[in-house]
């Protein structure tokens, strides 16, 4: 009798999961991280492709993604293709999606060979959101660059056809003979990723601001809709911060991915849409102070240009009015461009300069590199504030 009682008490104090010990992650598919109203401008090439259905009634992008995801065999979690039930709590609260943050196409013209140098840029993330704790527990960004040459200027329909091929059958890699599609890397990422569920607190980008000196360089299509661009920059920063520092975040916006696609994976359609984004415990505000382009060296063969991005980063706890960092950062990229290239796309260069800045910042929090610190901001206070942010990252884990 005593033995039976002892074992029962033991189970009550130390609850044992009788079901499988692997963490379940529910698959939500492909989506857009931005807002619904921005999709026709922000992802104008991909958006129409989501309406093309295959013989099974599923859109061609989702079908291609599903093939890649089904090949994955992650070691720390199990991908579940059924619906989740939020009432089962933490057991069925994590949903995963592959989202497109941003895509862009630009072309530069080489007048001697009369060739158009085309480039398609696509920025994706694999995101894991926990609807019980309301945290973005993982965000793994990856991006794709597709340079190719044509003798004529491409129209939108031709560009879309190229992107469609990239999503579905794939294109030849520049690095080797392999054929890669938009989701070829997803299998590898998922297999190598260790999912961590428990995080103490959350940080989040709460504000993105474009100052006067940056607005003049923003392309017209984004000037009309700065909210879209704000989300792009917020995602650019937060995905890198999350990836390199293993912290949980509050997304800048729910957008279509979290607000619609992921929530649709729950059976509880009566309550799931009531779950709102929480306030972050620590706020991050990004000010894009300006951009600058300088012609450093000119010759008949090549011109050397610098493109610089200037940012202010403010990381603080609003209730305590405690600031961890409020510093200006800069990054400069240098490129040698053949002299005969016309219509150089400056915006893409500024974007990459910012991308590298955010990536470098996130990496250097844990292991500050003196050279990087000096070239980003050579003040003493910046080096000290990096240490403050490092302590903050530890607190968030």
């Amino acid at each position, binding site marked *: 009798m005593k033995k039976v009682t002892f074992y029962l008490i033991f189970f009550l104090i130390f609850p044992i999961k009788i079901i499988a010990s692997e963490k379940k992650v529910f698959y939500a598919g492909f989506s857009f991280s931005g807002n619904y109203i921005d999709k026709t401008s922000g992802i104008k090439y991909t958006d129409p492709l989501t309406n093309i259905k295959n013989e099974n009634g599923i859109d061609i992008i989702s079908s291609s993604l599903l093939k890649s995801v089904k090949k994955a065999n992650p070691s720390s979690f199990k991908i579940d293709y059924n619906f989740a039930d939020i*009432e089962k709590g933490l057991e069925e609260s994590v949903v995963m999606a592959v989202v497109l943050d941003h895509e862009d196409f630009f072309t530069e013209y080489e007048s001697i060979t009369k060739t158009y140098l085309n480039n398609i840029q696509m920025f994706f993330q694999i995101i894991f959101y926990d609807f019980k704790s309301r945290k973005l527990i993982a965000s793994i960004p990856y991006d794709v660059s597709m340079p190719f040459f044509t003798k004529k200027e491409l129209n939108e329909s031709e560009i879309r056809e190229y992107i469609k091929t990239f999503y579905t059958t794939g294109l030849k890699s520049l690095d080797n003979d392999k054929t890669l599609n938009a989701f070829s890397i997803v299998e590898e990422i998922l297999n190598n990723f260790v999912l961590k569920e428990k995080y103490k607190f959350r940080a989040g980008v709460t504000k993105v601001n474009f100052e006067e000196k940056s607005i003049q360089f923003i392309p017209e299509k984004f000037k009309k809709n700065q909210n879209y661009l704000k989300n792009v920059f917020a995602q650019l920063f937060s995905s890198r911060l999350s990836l390199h520092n293993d912290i949980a975040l509050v997304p800048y916006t729910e957008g279509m991915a979290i607000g619609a696609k992921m929530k649709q994976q729950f059976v509880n359609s009566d309550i799931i849409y009531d779950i709102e984004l929480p306030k972050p415990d620590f706020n991050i505000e990004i000010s894009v102070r300006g951009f600058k382009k300088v012609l450093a060296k000119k010759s008949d063969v090549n011109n050397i240009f610098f493109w610089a991005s200037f940012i202010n980063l403010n990381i603080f706890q609003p209730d305590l009015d405690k600031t961890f960092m409020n510093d200006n950062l800069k990054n400069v990229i240098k490129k040698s461009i053949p002299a005969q290239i016309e219509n150089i796309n400056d915006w893409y260069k500024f974007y990459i300069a910012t991308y590298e800045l955010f990536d470098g910042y996130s990496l250097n929090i844990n292991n500050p590199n003196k050279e990087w610190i000096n070239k980003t901001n050579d003040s003493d206070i910046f080096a000290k504030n990096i240490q403050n942010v490092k302590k903050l990252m530890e607190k968030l884990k």
Partner: protein
Amino acid sequence: MSKIFKFSSILISLIFFNFHVLAFEENGKGTVDLANYTSFEENKNEIIKDAKVLACKNALQKYVSTFSIDKKKNFEKIKSKVNDNYNQYMVCDSVIDENLDVGENKFTILMKANIDENKIDQALVEVSAIANAGADEVSDIVILMFSAKTKSIKQKDDKVTKVDQTTKSVDVEQTEASKEGETQISSETTETNVTTTGGNTVSSSEVITYEVTDIYNESIEAGMVEILNTAGFELIDGGDLDLEEQIETMKVDYGEQGKLSKAVQKSIKKNIASEEISFYVQGIFKIGSQEVDSATGMKMVNVSVVSAKMMHKREGKKFWKTVATVAGNQRKGKGTTYDEAINNAVRLCSQSVAKQMVQKLNAKGIK
């Protein structure tokens, strides 16, 4: 053996019973004046402990500030109990951050609190008059609430009137005011003739008619019943009360006039009273137009309460009285289809109506 079996059953049921806990997350701030202590270093643990208590209570205070006026009034009855035993109503043990302000000689701590809403609601119910009524005092209630969808919108043409005027002026002698305050003006006479000089336009607003429906009644009941049950009411199905004719008249009245006629109200009251039921709720939810949520692309609908009244007839009294009125509540519902969005919005709206009504009743001490 049987005692152990009973004990084991309870333990096993506790292991597998699924508690659905509603938690309200809030950050609380607690500031301690270091002048009250010898020094920070010497009294560090005590200072942190005191600051934590203040922070957790601050989180509770912030939660209470989200209450409606009636709920706050009810909370006053249990405020001391909850404040003194706050740990039983929340989990408040995560330190978000702390700050030692040497200049101000203050120490501040920020805590994350997860407040158990169920426990607080339960404590509120326990002190309510209606929940404390005896078993033989359980109050029956009938819900007569409907939803209204836009049926038609008549846009009248603006009414334009052309007024033809010919004026004849007759000047009277102008006299300047000789004393302060005196004023004399010219008069003129006008005669209306048939010539064109001007006109006016009377703009008409839309005339909207509604289709009152009961297809969302399940969602209305789903939203209201649980809250009313917890508050000590038991729902009586309106269909059991021989009110079909009155219900149809109600729908027509609401749809065309936006209100009930006196006659049908009297008839309803008489019928309900004859069944010895002392409470009923009547009202309308207005279903807004179908929209698409700009962030997520989901279908979205806004539902608002046009009017919702709880009527009560005290035993021995002749007349029914309005004991709670709720109007203006609005809730949005989302879904993959508009029907789903409407059901979600109606349910949320009816929940908010029921909560407010119960709070008003408790505040008045009605049972």
